């Protein structure tokens, strides 16, 4: 049984903020909430290496919401940027040109479009080289900053601007969400975890645990997205909760490749989650697509049967 060691009660989460409000991100952004919580453990001695995506708008001249540093790179190579910064810091410290206390944690911030698609090669390279860095993927399951087009993180049955519902494909997206967790895990980095903003103790505990490891530390953060998933911004906590409680978003970690589920949901029906969101409305209106809904339910059931067996 997985036990939290550092964060047992909500009061143990530091009240100090490291990501300040007033950014141009959407109200109710689940990704930003996850980052805000993560930064409570990461602190301020951080360099965020950003890939093109929604979070690129966090640092828009002349503003940044961080006390730490920021480097925008490209959509496909933020992990390579992290490599350059980490290596340079190491070299400068080793040569005595930078005091050790000036060191920074290097944290990649990428959306699912970058993470699952374009930056797969540079991420794989960084994992292969054992780069000492954090990877924070805010996963809203589509190319969000460009207006919600299909990414390889988009789940079966979701409607996006480039996987619309049609007579041929009434469910919208026909592909299954790519399993990036397993792709990362195949590289056996010391630490991988999924997190969700509605489970702050689980999230904080995972960042605290990750800090003990040297090497790649990767986080997949559920980024419930009112703008793209089409629900009221105030419902982000509920959508994030149901993603976890239906079993669609398993909370887990992998230490040196060993997977542990950190929260075992009671597996509410997936419908409870799907119904809240406009991107799945076509599964219920004007006619109910029982087969598609059943398909989603069966995939979730099969997952939990496999991991608990």
């Amino acid at each position, binding site marked *: 049984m997985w036990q939290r060691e550092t964060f047992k009660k909500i009061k143990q989460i530091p009240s100090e903020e490291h990501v300040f409000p007033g950014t141009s991100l959407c109200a109710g952004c689940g990704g930003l909430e996850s980052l805000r919580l993560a930064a409570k453990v990461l602190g301020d001695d951080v360099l965020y290496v950003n890939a093109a995506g929604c979070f690129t708008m966090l640092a828009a001249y002349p503003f940044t919401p961080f006390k730490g540093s920021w480097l925008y790179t490209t959509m496909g190579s933020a992990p390579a940027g992290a490599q350059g910064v980490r290596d340079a810091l190491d070299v400068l410290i080793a040569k005595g040109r930078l005091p050790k206390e000036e060191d920074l944690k290097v944290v990649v911030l990428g959306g699912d479009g970058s993470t699952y698609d374009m930056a797969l090669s*540079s991420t794989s390279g960084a994992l292969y080289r054992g780069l000492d860095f954090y990877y924070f993927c805010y996963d809203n399951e589509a190319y969000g900053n460009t207006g919600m087009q299909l990414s390889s993180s988009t789940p079966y049955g979701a409607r996006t601007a480039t996987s619309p519902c049609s007579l041929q494909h009434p469910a919208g997206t026909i592909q299954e969400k790519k399993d990036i967790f397993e792709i990362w895990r195949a590289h056996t980095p010391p630490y991988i975890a999924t997190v969700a903003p509605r489970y702050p103790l689980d999230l904080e505990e995972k960042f605290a645990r990750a800090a003990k490891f040297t090497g790649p530390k990767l986080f997949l953060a559920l980024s419930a997205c009112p703008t793209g998933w089409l629900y009221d911004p105030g419902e982000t906590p509920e959508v994030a909760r149901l993603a976890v409680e239906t079993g669609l978003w398993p909370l887990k970690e992998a230490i040196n490749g060993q997977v542990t589920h950190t929260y075992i949901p009671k597996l509410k029906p997936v419908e409870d989650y799907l119904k809240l969101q406009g991107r799945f409305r076509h599964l219920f209106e004007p006619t109910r697509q029982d087969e598609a809904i059943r398909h989603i339910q069966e995939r979730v059931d099969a997952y939990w049967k496999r991991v608990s067996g």
Partner: protein
Amino acid sequence: MAGEMMTGNLAAAWGARLSAVDYIPAFPITPQTEIVEALAKWCESGVMAARFVTMDSEHSMMTAAGAAAATGARVFTATSSQGLLYAMEVLYSISGWRAPLVLVNVSRALASPITLEPDHNDVLAARDSGFLQIHAETCQEVLDSILIAYRIAEDERVMLPVIVNLDGFYLSFTREPVILPAPEQVAQFLPPFRPAHLGFKASAPHALGVAVLGGTPYSYFRHQMHLAAMNALDVHSETAAAFERLFGRRYDVVEGYRLDDAEDVLVMTNAFASRGKVAVDAARAEGRRVGLLRLRMIRPWPADAIRGALRSRRAVAVLDQNLAPGQGGILFQEIAACLYHEALRPRALCSFIGGLGGKNLSEGEFRTIFEQTAEAGVREKGIGPVLLYTEAEHREMTQLQMLAAAPGS
């Protein structure tokens, strides 16, 4: 003969070694590999105090290079051709970060059709990236240009990355005598990299490469880059003077060869300029008053030096080892543009396209260039673009086509 025999590639590696670089992200590509192989060996053995990292692509390689330079390390890397284009978007990022580093490009023609031999469509594709460009003719110049490039790049008035270009095969794999400067002398010429406005550290957080909203801040930063690039002309002349004082070798933004009394001038770049100089000698022996202007610095564009070298000539021929399909020679356009307001501009400008994909430039082709340029000067009407192709090459190609159209097809 003074100096050690070494290839252009090894001279490039020595340039990085003598510049005491801190960091070398790498990715292999023909014909650049000897550079990264030599550097990997030197880093491994400890004769260089640099970290060498093999990346997963040129795109990643350039990102790591720029990010490390932005962190305050002196960075070297090298690529070629497809690799340069694969990294292209990152070049624009690095110059925007105002992160000085040196990138050696070993010129190789671009696919398709895919080939290994040189022309300059690769490096000239980067001409608007904000990287400065120095194009070298000899192995010695490759090494020297890297030292010069670091000093220019890291100058507070510039703070921009530099590409040093050499031709694949013809220079990368050709051994020439190269004088290796003493490390103590290089240290005198090239001060340690201690940037005042770059470097990520805990006590001085800052944001780099951030988004801007609208054209006002965007234009401001782009204008700044242009002005900094233009500063590199003066910085180059100061740097070249310091280099000459210490090492006795003189480099200018352009190099004139037998220009003094030349009526007609041939403009070239890179290693094939050596052939052009031989052709000038041959033409002079036949009584033609011709000379050669080699462009060494392509960015910033040394317009004044070019105007100074070409004014009052009868005719000028630009031999482009590149082709902008539907337009012609890239450098021809730039030469023509900078001569427009020159009152004593040449009476004819001729454009020749030659040496694509390493295609030979024969004596006959040079003779034709000088003849046609002289005629154009007399007629006061330029020609081109002339696509150089000899009869022998045409015969060879016809044979290949017959083989390609296999019997029975």
